C-alpha cells in the first residue's frame, strides 16, 4: 500500500509475500535453500525477514520429477523513493554432493521481484562457480570444498562477471507472488492474471 503522508507522498512500498516452493537438482534428493533480499541504495526493508534459511527437505518417491518441496513462506515489505535497485531475491541452494557430504553449495540464483502486482510464478535457474584450474577442480571434488562466492549477494550484481566465467547451470524453480502498489508517478500495469509465467532473464544471460 502506498504510504499516505502529509502533503506529498515520499515513498512507495512494495510488498512481497510468497513461498519458495520447490527445487530440483539432478542427482540430489535432499536440499535446503538460503534466501536474501538484495535491493538498491534508495530502498529499505520496512518489515519482514530479509534473509532466511529453509528447512532441509527431501524428495519422496511419490513426486514423479524428483523435485524437493519446501513451501517456505517469505514475506517482506520494501520502501523506496526510486525504482532503481528493484529488490531481488538471491537464492543459494545447498545439499549433499556425490559422496554424501553435507552443506555443499549446489547453485546460486537471483531473480527480480515481479514488477507488476499479482500472482507470479517464477523459475530461477542457478549456477555455481567452478575452480579456476583443473587441479583446483580435482581438489575441490576430492576434498569436498567447492568454490563459493565470497559475497552471497554476488548473483544480484553485475560487476565481477568478467572474472568468473566458468559456471555450472542447473534449473531450480521457486514460486511466489507479489503485491505492490506505487502512486509516485510510476505507471503500474494492471495485475497480471493468475498463471502468468515469468521466465527469469538471468537464465539466458548466464550460460
Amino acid at each position, binding site marked *: 500500500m502506498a504510504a499516505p503522508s502529509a502533503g*506529498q*507522498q*515520499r*515513498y512507495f512500498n512494495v510488498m512481497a509475500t510468497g513461498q519458495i516452493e520447490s527445487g*530440483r537438482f*539432478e542427482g540430489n534428493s535432499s536440499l535446503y535453500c538460503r534466501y536474501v533480499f538484495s535491493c538498491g*541504495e*534508495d*530502498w*529499505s526493508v520496512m518489515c519482514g525477514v530479509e534473509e532466511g534459511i529453509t528447512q532441509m527437505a527431501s524428495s519422496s518417491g511419490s513426486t*514423479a*520429477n524428483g523435485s524437493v518441496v519446501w513451501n517456505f513462506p517469505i514475506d517482506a515489505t520494501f520502501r*523506496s*523513493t*526510486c525504482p532503481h535497485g528493484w529488490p531481488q531475491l538471491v537464492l543459494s541452494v545447498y545439499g549433499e554432493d556425490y559422496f554424501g557430504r553435507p552443506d555443499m553449495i549446489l547453485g546460486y540464483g537471483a531473480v527480480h521481484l515481479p514488477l507488476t502486482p499479482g500472482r507470479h510464478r517464477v*523459475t530461477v535457474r542457478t549456477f555455481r*562457480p567452478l*575452480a*579456476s*584450474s583443473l*587441479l*583446483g577442480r580435482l*581438489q*575441490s571434488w576430492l*576434498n569436498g*570444498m*567447492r*568454490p*563459493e*562466492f*565470497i*559475497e552471497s549477494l*554476488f548473483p544480484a550484481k553485475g*560487476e*565481477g562477471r*568478467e*572474472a*568468473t*566465467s*566458468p*559456471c555450472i*547451470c542447473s*534449473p531450480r524453480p521457486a514460486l511466489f507472488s507479489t503485491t505492490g502498489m506505487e502512486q*509516485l*508517478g510510476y505507471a503500474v500495469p494492471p495485475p497480471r492474471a493468475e498463471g502468468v*509465467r515469468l*521466465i527469469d*532473464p538471468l*537464465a*539466458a*544471460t548466464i*550460460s
Partner: protein
Amino acid sequence: MRSRLARGGAKQKGDDGDKKDDSADAAPAVPVAPVGDLTVRPAPLFTSGSKRAAEEAVLYTTAAHPRSFSPLRRRRTGLGGGTFDDGLYVAPLPAASARALQTLEARLAFAPGSKALADGAGVLLRQPDPVRPVRVLPSWLDAAGAEPSGGPFEVERRRPEKWGTSVAGTLASGGASPRVLQVSVGGIRLQDHRLFLREHELQSACRSLVARLEDAHERQLAQLHALKISELKEAVADLREQIGGGAGEGTTDAKLQSRLAALCTELLETRQLKDEQECAERLLARRLLKLWHALKAEREAQGFKSTRARMQFRLVEPSAIDEEAEALARELEEEVDERKLAHALAAQAAPGSDLDEDGIRAAIERRQQELRRPPGEGRLLPVYSELATPTPPEQLPQRERSRQREAAREVLYARLLVDGRAVCELGCGKLQPHDMSVRLEASIQLQLLTRPASLAVEVWQRRYGGLGDQLLGQVYLSMPETASPTMPHWQSYAFTASRPFQPLAGREGIHEALENALDGVQPLPRHVVSGEVEVSTAWTTRPADRLSEAGAGAVGDLASGGALAVDPQQVLATVSPDELDPNAPTDAPLLSLMARIDRGSVGGIFRHLRNAAALQWSSSWAASDRFSLFQLRRKHPGKWAQLPPDEKAVPPRDSLIPPGMRQLLRPAAEFDDAVGRYDSDRVAQEKASRVKAWITQVRARHEAARASQRYVMDTQDYVREPLLEVEAAEINCSAFLKLLEPRRKLLPQRRLRKPVPGSDSTERKIEVVVQSGFDLPVRAPSNAQRGRPKTSLFVEVRFQGQRFTTDIKSGANPAWNTILELNLAAPGGDWSQQAIMNLSDEIAFNLYDKVHRTERDERDESQLTVREESRWLGGFALPFSTLYRNGKLEGSFPLDTMPPMLLGYEKDSESRSQAFVPASALRTFLTINPLLPPPKEEERERLTTHDAKMQEFAKEWVKTIARGERHVRVFAPGADGQKMLLCRFIRPQNPPSELIGNERQLLRYVSLVPFLDDAAMEGGALDVWNTSDSFLDLGAGDQEEHAILLCNYLLAMNKGSYVVLGSGIPEGLTAYVLTIEGGSPRLWNACTGRTWEKDEFDRCSLTSVGAVFNQQNIWANVGPGEAPAEVQWNLSDEKLWKPFFGKGGFARPDVLPSAQLSTLEYHRTTEDFRSGIEREVYDALQREVEELRGFRPTDWNRSVNAKLKDLLKRFEQDVAGVKKLTAIEHDATLERVRASYHMVGLPINVTYTDRNAIIKRVRETNIFLADAKKIQFALSVYVHAYPNQVCSVWVYCASLEDLRAGSSSRSS
C-alpha cells in the same frame, strides 16, 4: 532435389488434415510422412550448432518439411549413418553419453509447459537431420508456401562460449526479434596491380571512361535537358501571351513579369547546361576512341592480346547537314530572342545599359562552335565489351606466359566487418589473368539486434598460404536506410592499398600514352594496388518470421513487419505525400514508408535505441537537485555516509529534499575567517574532526573504488577457492642436515624463536635491555663544590601504566645492561592483528639524574633532611606498532626530547659533539617474548585500472630486485583509491612566502607539522599517501607526507632533492629527503628536523636505504651496502642503483601528470590565534603545577618570566637557523638571576596539537616537585606561529631556590 522437395511440401500441406486423424488412431506413430516417393525425417540434432544449421537449411532452400510430430516420441534409437529406405543419405548422429542423454531428457521434461513425462518412462528419440545445410543465394519469394517450423518447443544445449557471446542464446531468450541484413560480395575488379601490363592499364582506363559514359547515357541527361528546354519555351510563350493580353493590371502584371524573368533565366541556364553536357559526352567518346587506338597499338607492339577488351564504335550518321545547320541557326535565334527578353525584363526592373545584340549573337555562336557538334558530323557511339578472345597460351612469349601463371596464383578474399569486428570471410577467389578481376560471389546473412554503427568490407590478398595475408583496402558500406526488407542493389566501392609496388618492366612509358589519350588528364604518379569491389546490402526477413507469416498466407504483410530506422512521424513532418513522384525510383522507399504509416503498422526494432538517445539529451533532469544528489552519492560516498541512516534515500522530488541533503549540495565553505580567532576547544575539536572526516572520506573512497571497478578485479576477488587458501607448509631440509652434523658442545647452536599466536592464556612480555648511553650530559662544576660532581643517571621505562627503572650509573657513557620486563596486555583481550596494530601505547624512555640534597637544620643539628630529586634530562618514545612490525629493535636511539640547554649540565669535555640534542643517545634492545606472529598483509596487493600495465610490471620489478629487508615500492595508494606512481607526488611547490630562501627554516616548518601515523588512524591502518595541499590542510601526516613536502620545497629552491625510502630507528619504514650538492649527499629527516652530512651518516637514524625517487624516476638500491654510510650515492651507476624507467625497466610514458597542485596556498596564522595559545598553555600549566604540588604552596616568581621568554624566542631562532644561541649567551642572560637563586630548569619544545601533550611533558620533568625553603618557580611560554596554524610551543620551567635563604643545602 530442391524442386522435388518443394513439390513434396506443397502436397504435404494438402494432406495435413488426413494425417492428424491417422496419428490420433495409432498412438506411437512413427513420424514418417509419405510424400510422393520421398520420406523426409528431419529432427533436431543435439549439437551446439544444430539449431542454426537447421535454420539455415530452411533459409536457403525452398523445401518445406513436415514438422507436425512431437520430438519426444519414445522409441529406441538405432539410427546411424547410411541410406534410408527412400534412398536419402543421412549423416550419423554425434555420439552422446547415456548420462548426457538422461540429463537432456530430464531437462526437457522439466521445462515449463512440457507434458512429456506424463506418459511414463521412456527414451528420447534422436533422429538425424536429412537436410544437408547448403548455402544458396536466397530468393525473395521462397517463403511462399512454406510451413512453420518447430514443434511445441525447441531443444537447445547451452554452453559457456569462449569467444564472444552466444548469439543464438541471446536470440532464444526472446526480447527484440533480430533483423537480418544480407551482404553479398560480387567481385573485385582491379584497377592497378603488380602484374598489370600496359594493356591492362589502358583497359582499366577504358573501363572507367565507359562507366562514365554509360552513366551519362543511362541518366539521359542530354535528352532531359532538351525536354526541359522545350517545356520552358512553352511556358515562356504562354506567359508572354498572358502579359500581352491582360496589359493594364498593375500588380498581376508585375508578378507575371517577375515570373517570366525567372523562367527566362532558367531557360538560358538550361541551354548552357545542355550544350555542356553534349560536349562532355562527345569528349568522352573521343577519348575512348583515342584510348582504344592506343590499346590496339599496344597489342600490336607486344604481339599478343592479354585482355578481353573489345571496343566497337558505331557512327550515327547525321540526318542532313542542312537540317542540322538550320536547327542550330534556329536555336541561335531563339536564344538571342530570349536574351533580349531577359534584358528587357531586367531593364524594366532597373533601367541600365542598352543591349548589344551583335555581341550576344557572337558569344552564342562562339559557344555553339565550341560545344555543339558541328552540323554534318556523325555521333560516335562506343560499344565496349570484354568478349574478345585473348591470345592462347601456346602462342604467347615465355615471359607473358609466366606472368599469367603468376597472376592465376594470386588469391583475393573479402572480409566482412561489423562495427569494426571481423565477422567472417566472404568468398575467396583466384585472380583471372586476362580480366585482372576476381569473382567472389558470396553472400551472408547477419542477424542483428541493433543497427550496426558501421559495416565494412576488407579486401585481402592471400600470401604464403594464408600466413602473411596482406590487407589491400577497406571500404565502408552504405546500409539500406530502413530496417524493412529492400531489394538488393549492387554498388561498386573503390579501394586503394597504401603500399606502392614496383610495376613490371615495360610499363614506364604508359603515363605519356595515357596522358595523350586522355587529353592531359594525369594518371596516378605512383603505383598502388587499387580496384573496385561490388557489394550489395539489403534487409531481409528472418527465416522464422518469414515462415510464420508465409504460413499465415500473407506475403504482402512482410513489409509491414519491418521496422524503421527513421522516425516515421519526422518523415511525415518534412515530406508530404503530394510532393512525391510515384514514378521516380528515388522516391520509391519514401512512398512505401508512407503506405506503411497509413496502414498504422509501424513497429520498430531500433526505435528503443533512438528513444534512449532522446532521453539522454533531455536537459531538464540534469539540472535538478535530485540529479546532483545522485552524482554526489556516486562521487563522494564519504559525505553521503555522514547522513543519518534513515535519510539516505534520495527523495522522488526536488521539493522533498531534506535539509541534511541540502547541506551537502551547498558548495564547500571557504576557509573560515573565524578560525583566525582563538578558541582552544573549538580549534582542537575542529582539527580532530577535520582529520576524522578526511579518514572517513578516504575510507569511503577506497570502498567505492573497490565497487566501481577502479581495481583490476580477479576471480579471487569474487570466488573463494579452497585450494588457494590452503597454505603448503614449508619443508625444512636443513633440519635433516643438522642431524647429520657432528655435535660440538662448545659451539652452541642458535635456536630461533617461534612466533606464538596471541591469546590471553600465554603471558607475553616486552623485554627491554637498556644497554648503555652515549655522549650524555655531565654536571657542570659548581662554585660550592670542588671538582666535577658525578651524575647518577638512570633510565625509566614506561608502558601501559607500568614503570621500571634501571640501576644508577654515572659518567657520560654509562653502561647499565639492565633487563626489564614489561607485561603486554591486549585491549579487551583482543589479540587480532588489527587490534595489536591499533594499540596506541608507547614505550617511553626517560633519562633522569638522581640528585641527593641534604639539609641540616641549624637549630637542631641532629636533624638531617635528605631530599632525593630526579632531574629529567631527556627521553624518547617508541610506538608499540614499530616494535610489533619489526619483532625486535636494537640500536642507538637518540634522546629526541632532550632540551637544547640544561641548566647545571654541560657536555663531557671528551665529547666531540657540540650540543646535547642530536648526540645523546641510548643503546637499547627490545623484543616481545614470546614473539607475536609477524603482521601479514591482509589484503593482497591489488592493481588499479589506471596505469594497470605499469603496476603489473612494477610488481615483478620489485620482486626481481628484492634484497633483504630493503623497502622498495613504485606505487602508493592515493586518497582517491587509485594507485599512483611515486614520481607523481614530487613537484616543485612554493614554500610559504615568509620562509622562502632559508632551508633550515623550511625544515623546521615541515617538521613542526603534526605527525599522524598511518597505523594509528581510527578504525585500522590506512596506508595512504596524501598530497601536500591536503596534508597542509589537515595539519597531519606521516613520514612520507613530511618528506614529500620538504622535497618539493627544496626542488622549488632549485636543489637537486630526492625522497629516500627505507627503514630507520625508531619508526621502521620511513621516508627521508636526500639532497646531493656538488657530489656530497645530505640526508634530512623531515619529521624530526635533523640533517646528516656525509661524514655523519654512520650516526644517522636511517638504517637501510631501499629506494630513491624524484619526479623523474625511481632508483632501487641494488648495491651491496644498505646503511647510508655504506651506500654509494651515485644514482647514475646502474650496478648500484637500478632505475625503474630506463634500461631493463619500464618504458617511460610521455607524460607523468603530477598528483600535486602547482602552487600551494597558505594562510597566515593570526596574532590573535598565536597569543591565544600562549595564554591558554600558560594558564593550563600554572593550574596543573599548583595542583601537582598539592598542599605545598607554589610561589611564582614572575620577574624572571620575561627574561625566560626572551630566551625562548632565541631558542626558536636557533632551531630555525636564523641566529645561533650559544651556551655563553644563555648563561649571560641568566647570570643575574643565578646570582641570587639556585636555578634548576630547562626549556621544552613541542609542536602544538593539544595542551595535554605539553602538560604531560612538563610533568615528566619533575621540576615542580622540587622543594626547599622559600622555593619559587618560574614558568614562561612562547608560541611561534608559522603559516597554516602550525605552531611551535616553547615552555621554560625552572625552580628557583633563594641562595640568601641561608639554607646550607648541598647536593651530591
